[in-house]
């Protein structure tokens, strides 16, 4: 008996074969116990696939921090991150120390109260100019609020190579964020 090629069974099994093909293969199944047995085995196997269910891992506890706090956290990260880069370039355009001193206490209070110790720790590390800690912080925040921080992370990771124009623009962003957070206090 001539058997259909193995690959031909797949569109048939998934209801994507033409009417003619379907009829031909159905007829073959009726007359060929070997193919019928194999195809039946495939069908039993696929029927069992549904038993492998996944459970979504529990999201970290803090997933719904208010937007205001997120902006605070973002401001803190940007300020501290840029503090590193600006320290490396020739003449800082802004007194990041002063800016940091101004923002940081309320940031830390807000963050510590709602987002836990992890951020306070990261801030301390960042003050020691450990960029990795800042990036880790950002990754953690990304975990919780994916879309908000992609652009920010990208900026941070290229901050060392920023041109003066870019730094100037970023500083404007800081002021904007600062103003925004002050207005929402």
């Amino acid at each position, binding site marked *: 008996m001539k058997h*259909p090629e193995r690959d031909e069974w797949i569109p048939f099994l998934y209801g*994507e074969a033409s009417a003619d093909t379907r009829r031909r293969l159905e007829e073959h199944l009726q007359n060929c116990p070997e193919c019928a047995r194999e195809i039946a085995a495939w069908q039993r*196997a696929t029927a*069992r696939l549904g038993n492998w269910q996944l459970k979504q*891992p529990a999201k970290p506890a803090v997933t719904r921090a208010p937007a205001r706090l997120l902006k605070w956290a973002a401001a803190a990260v940007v300020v501290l991150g840029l503090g590193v880069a600006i320290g490396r370039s020739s003449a800082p355009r802004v007194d990041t120390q002063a800016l940091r001193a101004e923002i940081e206490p309320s940031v830390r209070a807000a963050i510590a109260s709602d987002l836990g110790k992890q951020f306070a720790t990261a801030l301390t590390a960042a003050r020691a100019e450990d960029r990795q800690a800042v990036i880790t912080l950002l990754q953690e925040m990304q975990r919780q609020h994916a*879309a908000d921080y992609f652009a920010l992370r990208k900026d941070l990771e290229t901050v060392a190579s920023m041109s003066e124009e870019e730094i100037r623009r970023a500083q404007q962003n800081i002021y904007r964020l600062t103003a925004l957070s002050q207005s929402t206090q």
Partner: protein
Amino acid sequence: MGGKQWLTSLLTMTDEQAMWRVQNQDDHEAFARVVERWEQPIWRLCTRLTGDAHRGEDIKQEVFARIYAKRKDYRPDLRFSTWLWRIALNLCYDELRRNKRHATHLVDGEEGEGLEALPAAHDGPDGETVRSEEGALVRRAVLQLPEIYRTVLVLRHYEGLKLREIAEVLEVPEGTVNSRMAEALARLSRMLEPQLDRRPKPDQPHPLMTL
């Protein structure tokens, strides 16, 4: 379709529309919408391909980071989901390849694909519910398939992609998808029912039984 549904579908941005806004206006809201819509399916894919829910989570985040980073590269003549699946698969393959180099113990010695030693049939890594012994069995079988077969199986049976969509994602002809799927099903059925091979084989070579 009910009136409300129709209206909702009218007002819902398609992925392609959302990506246009992300590309041209850096629209984070639109991007968040896309992530919300796709993060579960992508997580499921990455978890089933790597066999590990936490690795699946890490790869998933990398997928969306990359989508955003490469947003300017997306061309709207390609369906967004095709592009998305493709990126996810490539990152999963990178991960599987990384593991291969460090694998010290392969499952059953045969088609382990470099996975770390799988736990006993009843346990799954944290975060995965293996509701029953049956689920564990199926999981183990699928994870033992070589990745090219595992991929088509997962895309079809767990994510519901049509055969043609799978061909688009993988950038192969449909015939190739069919052939990989047939191989996947043949191997899977033998893993789940080992006694299949103990039946007397026909004298003539049979196209279905080419293992």
